């Protein structure tokens, strides 16, 4: 098992290395130098060249890449010329808010999707299965922003139960306690994640229900409640670890849209604002961080699976 984990960690490191090359290379192709954004319009060529030389943007790509990686490894993600602040500071001011929104919706979504998927599989092809499956399919097909805006219109403007934008407080603790403004963003993104996950949970539970050990458990006279709780739930939830790990890019994307719609000052909104000002160091840094999070998530999912599933541990 240790050997497997070490090998898996090494592969993750290789992938992270490849990811840094791909993302740096891609952004370098798009923005060879931030000079066009930093310097005023109609700056003479000579001044641009001088600026590039001064800031090291005329070095060979490899040198620039190695310098960037060196900086990143030392905790420096670059400097935002537009906001006049280091990217590390910008990210550290905002990550907690995004983590709160994404983390709480992900957790809630898992707590809802797992029982829901099992319920659908056990009641397969009954009315309740059809209703919940159709609802999940519809929610899965709605563009995120459309769903959020309809929810705001219905629950914050027509019937003013909740706030129409997320909490604007500068203190993360205050944001967490502000259920009036946070209920809508969190519950909406939870529902959208549930729509995606419950489909996988349903088919996973259906596969598990067809296994011999379920038949055996029923045959030995175990109450159905215990069959579902002890044998079905545990086994059917295993694939969800992989699904969650794989869906991190989608979660980050959903987070971006939610933060833009609800005007929530997290990483997604920072990325969106930086897109409009073409603030290249921020774009580069957050894309890289997002990719690294995905790799870390997949690795964590693999460890969780190894710990939870003896079939993998012993293989």
């Amino acid at each position, binding site marked *: 098992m240790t050997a497997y984990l070490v090998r898996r960690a090494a592969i993750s490191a290789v992938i992270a290395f490849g990811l840094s090359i791909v*993302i740096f290379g891609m952004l370098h192709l798009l923005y060879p130098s931030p000079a066009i954004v930093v310097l005023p319009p109609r700056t003479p060529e000579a001044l641009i060249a001088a600026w590039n030389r001064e800031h090291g943007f005329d070095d060979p790509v490899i040198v620039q890449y190695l310098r960037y990686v060196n900086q990143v490894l030392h905790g420096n993600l670059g400097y935002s010329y537009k906001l006049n602040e280091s990217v590390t500071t910008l990210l550290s001011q905002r990550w907690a808010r995004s983590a709160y929104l994404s983390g709480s919706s992900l957790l809630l979504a898992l707590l809802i999707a797992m029982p829901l998927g099992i319920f659908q599989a056990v009641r397969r092809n009954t009315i309740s299965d059809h209703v919940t499956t159709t609802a999940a399919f519809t929610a899965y097909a709605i563009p995120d922003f459309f769903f959020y805006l309809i929810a705001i219109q219905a629950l914050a403007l027509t019937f003013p139960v909740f706030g129409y934008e997320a909490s604007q407080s500068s203190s993360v603790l205050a944001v967490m306690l502000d259920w009036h403004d946070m209920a809508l963003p969190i519950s909406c993104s939870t529902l959208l994640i549930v729509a995606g996950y419950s489909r*996988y949970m349903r088919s996973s539970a259906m596969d598990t229900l067809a296994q011999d050990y379920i038949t055996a458990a029923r045959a030995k006279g175990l109450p159905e409640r215990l069959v579902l709780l002890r044998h079905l739930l545990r086994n059917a939830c295993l694939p969800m670890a992989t699904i969650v790990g794989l869906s991190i890019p*989608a*979660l980050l*994307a959903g987070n971006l849209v939610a933060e833009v719609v609800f005007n929530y000052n997290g990483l997604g909104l920072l990325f969106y604002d930086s897109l409009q000002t073409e603030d290249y160091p921020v774009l580069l840094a957050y*894309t890289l961080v997002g990719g690294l999070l995905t790799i870390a998530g997949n690795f964590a999912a693999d460890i969780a699976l190894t710990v939870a599933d003896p079939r993998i541990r012993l293989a």
Partner: protein
Amino acid sequence: MANIAPPLPPLDVTRAPEGGEVGPVQSGWRLAAREFVRNKLAVVGLAILAFFVLFCFGGPLVYHGNLLNTNLLGVNLAPGPGHPMGTDNLGFDVLAELMKGGQASLEVGFLAAAIGIVIGALYGAVAGLLGGIADAVLMRIVDVFLSVPILFVVLIVAVRYGASVLSLSLIIGAFTWLVPARLVRGEVLTLRVRDFVSAARAAGSGRWRLINRHLIPNALSVIIVNVTFNVADAILLVATLGFLGFGLHYPTFDWGDMLSNGIGYLQAGYWWQIYPAGVSIILVVMACNLIGDALRDSLDVRLRKR
């Protein structure tokens, strides 16, 4: 939430009839088609998709609404004679917009999926056939690209180079070949050593027949299922792009652009500027997902007659 995770890989098709009684041999495809038609939801999905293709590409031949001249005396009109779905904030006809916007949505969806699938199938087949170190390296490259957050990259490229149907399809296609590549590779790896392939080889079939009759048809099921999901995801992605303000440029627009344009008037109650486009997106995406699920079930022998 678009594209939560790649679909679970379907199982491969085995055709050996069970039990002693051997009826007339039916082709796997005909069996699959029968299974597909039996799934009512799938037929509904196919009908919806066919309707929208006909509506968007055939509709403009029959129905000519105003899409050229802003008409300030006729803005935000409710549905009525002359404009069955009302007009938008510039006086354009919503029904005509719905047809034209749908063209872009469907074009990007299918083009991006086609690009992704062609690259992915070739890449996966090459990796599976090469095997060994080359395979390992090729698949690590797939892992690298899989961890890139696609929405971020598409946004960055769209900001820098502007968005058109072709450029968006190319970028989305360039990041959606990964799942098909994995699936096709897995399929080729298992197919290579399957008994029916060995049997076919022993019976003297040449390499071309082997690929043509055994490898492609079996891997194709995986590919087709994936196309449908990718079409749905691409349509949603482009709509999101339009909402964030980095989508297609007028005079090209998609349903997402219409939706984000109309949604500013939600408070004013101009529902006809919002719901036609919104419902169209939902229906087409749902249709694609229904077809994909049904195809996966019908091509999966284990699930048949259950």
